[in-house]
């Protein structure tokens, strides 16, 4: 084939366009999910939590969380009337296998499930030097594990202690709010496994979500509101001693 200068000039832009489409890759597999139509959060109803540890086990199974590390865990508080601001807190193995039996008349007991608070203005995303952790357009704080260096700045920055360095991958790891599930219309593994409905996934951008009515009619709090992280995990009936 004899390519003249004229042919070459016509072919070059076409080749450039083809190369652009190769770089762009294939379109996303889930075309029905629109990131801009959601703003994910979670509601935790403290009076409903029975401390069974189902959420912790479900999270470890769903996300292959290594033993001794937790994306979610449950704490048991014991608050005594003579020392209201210094509660005794236990979380044996993250509450995975439940808690030791508590005796009567030893104070006020309650369970507090914890997980990443999916902060809208998160300190962890602000300190990342390489842009490996970020809040997605639908409000979930995620880690790009291919890009993460494992410097652990974010682990130090999280005021809630929700991040860890994965012992094998050597990169930051944390709760993804089961991003691979919620984008397919499922609920998170912890909410799926919770027997009492103490944990509920909520979409703040969905006007029909029951979260809006709940927030209006209950005493709802976030953890460490004084840090202005824009936390989106809401706790119903949270005791003042919880930090």
């Amino acid at each position, binding site marked *: 084939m004899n390519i003249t200068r004229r042919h070459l000039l016509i072919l070059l832009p076409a080749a450039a366009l083809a190369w652009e489409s190769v770089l762009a890759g294939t379109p996303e597999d889930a075309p029905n999910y629109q990131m801009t139509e959601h703003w994910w959060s979670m509601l935790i109803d403290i009076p409903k939590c029975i401390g069974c540890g189902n959420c912790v086990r479900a999270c470890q199974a769903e996300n292959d969380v290594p033993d001794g590390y937790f994306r979610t865990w449950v704490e048991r508080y014991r608050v005594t009337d003579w020392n209201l601001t210094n509660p005794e807190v236990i979380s044996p193995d993250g509450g995975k296998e439940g*808690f030791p039996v508590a005796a009567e008349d030893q104070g006020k007991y309650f369970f507090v499930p914890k997980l990443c608070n999916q902060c809208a203005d998160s300190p962890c995303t602000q300190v990342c030097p390489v*842009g490996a952790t970020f809040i*997605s357009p639908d409000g979930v704080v995620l880690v790009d594990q291919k890009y993460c260096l494992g410097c652990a700045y974010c682990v130090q920055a999280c005021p809630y202690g929700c991040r860890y360095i994965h012992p094998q991958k050597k990169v930051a790891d944390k709760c993804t709010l089961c991003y691979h599930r919620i984008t397919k219309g499922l609920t998170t593994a912890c909410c799926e496994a919770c027997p009492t409905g103490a944990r509920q996934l909520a979409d703040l951008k969905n006007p029909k979500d029951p979260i809006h009515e709940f927030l209006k009619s209950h005493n709802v709090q976030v953890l460490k509101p004084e840090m202005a992280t824009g936390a989106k995990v809401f706790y119903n009936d949270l005791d003042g001693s919880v930090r």
Partner: protein
Amino acid sequence: MRIFRDTGHLFRLALVFAMGTACFLGVRSFLVPHSFGEYGHYRGSAISEIASHPLHFAGQQSCETCHSDVVEKKNAGKHAQVNCEACHGPLEKHVEDPASFDPGKPDTAVLCARCHAASAARPKGFPQVDIASHSGGVACETCHQPHNPAVSAGGTK
């Protein structure tokens, strides 16, 4: 009148500058991932990568598709709000191929106690029993079938 003398210097400087800029842009386009900056200061394709992680829990809808009889029985009792996989564990493998992955029956001695073993730490209204004195070693399902735990609904024996 000539304002500048020896303008060749300026042209050479501009040329070096242009080459440096082109070199920088070339290396940058090679090193920075294509989707970086698509939504913000991060790799946009990381979002779809995380969204494609494999499932382990199939979700209540999947269970109801085939086991509507059990779900109906469960919804008639006190365990109506408890999802199947809360007790039976993650069963996406079973949904993908029901024949090859049999979940088996959970051990009620462990399972029931997790929620219903008496403890002052649990909410007061939640049904709980002192396991040892309540059954005297008899298995829970003898009197309570887990799908509808009321004694009136009958146990296995």
